[in-house]
């Protein structure tokens, strides 16, 4: 190899190409990050919407237990897939960014645990459809805040805006009631995540 014979322009191109290649490898695929959750919520909250209906009459007679099982099952699958995909694609890097990722991961765990304890304290005082809405809206608030915080940590504007979008849809849906909340979350958040995954993948 005649290594020393590159022109300055070729050297610069080499530097830029290598930097871009590394960034691509170290950043997780947005399709993998967003689309599985999108599908899980589209289907899971879709099932809740069918079970609640908009005016209190179910669109399709699905029990709330079945809807909950569909939502949970979908989320478990999405989480397992994400974990597997991140494992498979991750380049072994240790140091500050690994610590950042670990702290961020624990934030999800602690946030969701605290959320279920707090909501569990008040749930027995409410009618059943309101209990579902309380769990859904408070957990989506945790999701929204953590996405915005993640956007701040990694300076990823799309992630930040996606979090803000979840917060807005969640807040509006909650004021409208359980049926509307499920419908809006299914289409605008679930569908939105799916679309965001595809758009970000194409752009990246």
């Amino acid at each position, binding site marked *: *190899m005649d*290594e*020393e014979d*590159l022109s*300055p*322009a070729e*050297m*610069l191109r*080499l*530097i830029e190409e*290598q*930097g871009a*290649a*590394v*960034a691509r*490898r*170290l950043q997780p695929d947005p399709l993998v990050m967003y689309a599985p959750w999108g599908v899980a919520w589209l289907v899971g909250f879709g099932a809740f919407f069918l079970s609640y209906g908009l005016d209190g009459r179910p669109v399709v007679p699905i029990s709330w237990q079945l809807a909950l099982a569909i939502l949970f099952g979908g989320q478990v699958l999405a989480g397992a897939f994400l974990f597997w995909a991140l494992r498979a694609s991750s*380049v*072994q*890097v*240790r*140091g*500050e*960014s*690994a610590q950042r990722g670990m702290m961020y991961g624990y934030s999800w765990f602690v946030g969701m645990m605290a959320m279920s304890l707090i909501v569990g304290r008040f749930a027995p005082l409410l009618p059943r459809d309101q209990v579902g809405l309380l769990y859904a809206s408070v957990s989506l608030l945790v999701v929204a805040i953590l996405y915005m915080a993640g956007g701040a940590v990694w300076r990823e504007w799309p992630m930040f805006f996606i979090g803000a979008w979840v917060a807005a849809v969640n807040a509006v849906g909650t004021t409208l009631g359980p049926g509307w909340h499920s419908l809006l979350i299914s289409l605008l958040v679930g569908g939105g995540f799916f679309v965001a995954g595809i758009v970000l993948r194409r752009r990246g």
Partner: protein
Amino acid sequence: MTVPDLDPVIHAQARLRVVATLNALCEGDQIAFPGLKDLLGMTAGNLSVHLTKLEDAGYVEITKTHKGRTPVTYVALTRRGRLAFEEYTVAIRALLGGDT
């Protein structure tokens, strides 16, 4: 046009690619040797040779440790290496007549 002196340690295609790769990591991060090898598409032997040269110049820090019982080698750019790469990029841009 004044031609700035280009850093001879970095001014070899292979080592420039190694330094550019390490520079793309966040400051304070280390990458495992096999991962670096994959990113560069170099053979282990070839990469080792270049890393040694970079380590001798104080541009790269190599940490050998154990994960369980398997030895793992981590590679990172030193502050000096980061600075040298920055200066090198500036020099190249100056050669090309850019204003940065």
